């Protein structure tokens, strides 16, 4: 079973002349699978970083992937109409799944058996707390099914929130949203 979803046209998309692949005979245009990049930085002064994805073509967001300090962020997704796709800011680690641990609840205190980092020696004073042991892994993309539908130039905003109260260093997460773009629909829904 593949975790990447296969593209399927909706009846409405078929009606406006979209095809999965370009059709030379009818002239119907195909759909493009693309990857858009964004990043969030979190530190002592930037507490709620925001990143806007905006695509000129009508598009459908079907997945989200990320790397970096995943365990340090909560996120919220909201489109420009105000619709929120998460009921509340949710930890990115729990959305993506896999071996990505949450930081300890108490700053610089190793916590065992409570979901925090393993009790190991701190990597150094610059980090301020114990490091991840093993290596952080995400099991699969976060798949949106049904997809998040964005009209032409409608933006999707990702807002980051810190997991803990205080950050002494720059935490960073790089994300990608995976979209299906509709070149035949550049002027918006008909």
């Amino acid at each position: 079973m593949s975790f990447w979803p296969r593209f399927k046209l909706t009846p409405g998309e078929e009606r406006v002349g979209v095809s999965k692949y370009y059709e030379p005979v009818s002239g119907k245009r195909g759909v493009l699978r693309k990857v858009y990049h964004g990043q969030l930085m979190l530190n002592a002064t930037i507490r709620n970083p925001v990143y806007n994805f905006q695509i000129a073509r009508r598009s459908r967001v079907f997945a989200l992937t990320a790397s970096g300090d995943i365990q340090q962020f909560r996120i919220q997704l909201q489109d420009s109409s105000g619709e929120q796709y998460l009921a509340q800011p949710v930890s990115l680690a729990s959305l993506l799944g896999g071996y990505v641990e949450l930081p300890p609840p108490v700053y610089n205190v190793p916590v065992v058996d409570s979901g925090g980092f393993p009790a190991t020696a701190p990597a150094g004073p610059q980090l301020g707390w114990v490091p991840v042991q093993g290596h952080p892994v995400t099991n699969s993309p976060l798949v949106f099914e049904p997809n998040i539908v964005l009209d032409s130039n409608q933006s999707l905003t990702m807002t980051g929130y810190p997991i803990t109260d205080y950050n002494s260093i720059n935490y960073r997460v790089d994300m990608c949203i995976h979209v299906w773009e509709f070149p035949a629909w550049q002027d918006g829904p008909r």
Partner: protein
Amino acid sequence: MFVWPALELTEYEKKYVRTYKDGKFPGVLRRAYEVTFNTVADPLTPGLESIKRSGRIQIARRSRVFALTFAGNLGSWRLQIETASGEQMTPKGISDGYPIVSSMLAGSSWNALAAIGAQPAVTVGGVSSFIGSYQNGPMLIDPNWELSPNETLMFNGEAIDNQLVDVGQPAVGQKVLSIGVHVWEFPGMDGRSETAPGLGCK
């Protein structure tokens, strides 16, 4: 468990090919191409003899790219993928660069720009190691990227390094990235259009 996708022919393609060769139509070929990036020339390692930050595939037959696989320092490379027509498949972000490869995939979430999530600095024989790196399956591309005969798909890499980003210097140390490009090739299909001059199908 991960399953590679099965080929599904479009009605248009069925005029020219079949999944397997039969008496009348040629069969589709499943092939793989490789693009490699390398920040430091390594004369003793085949494929890494020179510095490479770009590569391309160009296939004589009409083809469809259905998956990408990656190996190497995934958290240390930004990747731009562009067709010959200028279509950006991994567009540049509004305020930053192209996607970091590890952020495009499931698997190890090492990221050279991260604090805790950066890959441990381990060096073996002068080459940054891949210890602890893991990929959870290929990145599927559906709908596939269609390439006309001899159309080029370009890959450009940009190496990043956490220690030097703040002072605006290029990355140092050897970072490599190998990209497997998995395609279906369609013998006997010369192009995508039945009417456009020079792109007519047999």
